């Protein structure tokens, strides 16, 4: 499986990129500004779906599919499930924002500085990231991910993969133990 640049040139890339980016930014702003928690959750779902579409633009269909299944289809359903059980009237009478201006400004400045740094270095011709990044042909993406994770010659990330799944297992068992006094 040789990494090759995709044969078909992508269609209307800037158009889709800016559209999806706008959807993501608007969705992200709505998540934190909506008073109603269900509206926030719906905005978050929109953001996550737009993100999945961005992964598709990066020739990573597998990551996009997993993003839809796990985040939009799985985690957000549980979010909504919990939010629905909250009384909206009582929640809206609670304090809505933590007024932490200093930390917020510092974090925003750091992130903005990083973005500006990346933009200026790239526009001056120096790449901040490794150049010659190879993109796999779309029809082999899943197979490429699998061989990168599990193949002995290519990547050998099997151990870290299994460690991560063990961590999740521990979390599940912990949740069961916390929820059930007597098992």
């Amino acid at each position, binding site marked *: 499986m040789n990494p090759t640049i995709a044969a*078909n040139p992508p269609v209307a890339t800037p158009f889709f990129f800016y559209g999806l980016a706008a959807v993501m930014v608007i969705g992200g702003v709505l998540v934190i500004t909506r008073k109603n928690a269900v509206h926030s959750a*719906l905005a978050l779902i929109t953001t996550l779906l737009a993100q999945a579409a961005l992964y598709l633009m990066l020739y990573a269909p597998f990551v996009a*599919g997993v993003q839809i299944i796990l985040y939009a289809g799985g985690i*957000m*359903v549980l979010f909504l*499930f919990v939010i629905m*059980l909250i009384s909206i009237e009582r929640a809206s009478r609670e304090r809505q924002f933590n007024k932490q201006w200093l930390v917020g400004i510092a974090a925003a400045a750091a992130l903005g500085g990083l973005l500006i740094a990346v933009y200026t270095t790239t526009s001056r011709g120096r790449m901040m990231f490794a150049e010659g990044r190879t993109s796999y042909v779309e029809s*082999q993406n899943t197979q490429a991910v699998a061989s990168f994770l599990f193949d002995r010659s290519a990547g050998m990330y099997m151990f870290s993969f299994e460690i991560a799944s063990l961590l999740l297992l521990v979390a599940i068992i912990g949740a069961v133990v916390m929820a059930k006094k007597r098992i």
Partner: protein
Amino acid sequence: MHDLVQYIQSYLSSDKTPGAAGNIFWAVVYVLLVFVGLSIAVIAMNWLERKILAHMQVRLGPMRVGPHGLLQPIADALKLLLKEDIIPDEADKVVFWIAPFIVVLAAFTVFVVVPFGPTHAITDMNIGILFMLGVSSLSVLGIVTAGWASNSHYPLIGALRSSAQMVSYEVAMGLAVVSAIMMTSLNESSTGTLSMIGIVQSQLEQHQWFLFKFFPLGIVAFTIFAIAMVAETNRAPFDLPEAESELTAGFHTEYSGFRWSLFFLAEYSAMIAVSSIAVTLWLGGWLRPFPNALNGPTWDLAFSLIPGLTFLFLAGMCFYSTVRMPKHPLFRIQTMGLAGFGALLAAIGLVLFIPAVRVRVGDIFWFSAKVAGFMYLYIWYRGTFPRYRFDQLMKVGWKVLLPIGLALLIVTAAVGMRTELWAQVQGVFQR
């Protein structure tokens, strides 16, 4: 102009899906065809469900609107469109508006990758089956938001039940699907595929449907999926989210008119979608029976005549009923209508005998026939099984299907790798 014609014609000689060929015109045509076909299938399913359920309960079912109630679904659709569309005062207007559209979008988008034939799919994705599972799992979002936005007790309880049920059964469903996907990797290069077309082609290469592979592992996986898919689509006996006796109509109690009909449309197209996943993964998709054992031009010809013969048989049934119609003048229009319907079916059957049509629609016919079998099963379940209690539902999902699915996954992997495993064991003893 000439270029345009050439662009349109150039696809006809290719052996790719419009998506793979990058042909936008044919992609749009296929999308429209799938949309129209699905709508007709939902209308037909509506009529068939009422008729078959009625016959199972020794009733006649719809008989008044058109011969044998054939126009009943159209009358129903008209009634729904003309009905007053009520939005409750206390409802969350925006979310109430969006919810049915989420469900319909999720139910229809999955058909982008459904392979009706090696070239008859809108497109073939590398992540086909993941895409189908992911997008169809989005429909639960619509159901949950619909139940919440109604701001009423029954819909909320229905939505809670529905989300719990769908999330639980998605796990067992995913495990069964993974075991089928693992079976695709048993070829020379030992790489599997997630593409819907690739899965069917690997069944053709391995000379058997995955239903019968590693007997009985394939059948067990299929059974888990067949149970989970009924729960995923909220159908009897797992129709707790809309249990009439307890919740009036569950999550869509407050919906009426057009918006209710969207939920109806989405439910039936979701049923067709999960059935086509089952057909693709375990029943050989578009493959006709015995494509390898009974090959050769004679058998090809014999099997390619079956679609036309099926329609001729249905037409014959119509004509038989026409003869049996009461000879009273009041029934004259009905008799003529039924004869006309029979003539339409016969005409379709005759068109399907034309050689150029015959070779192109064979795969679509076999795929649809297999899916239709599942749709009949859905109706049969509804007529047969009593509804589960909620704790029983959870018990079946988490304590029966999930452990069996996990064990199945491990056993399938072990059986698939048996030569490598055996070599490892021998290596240990020789050392």
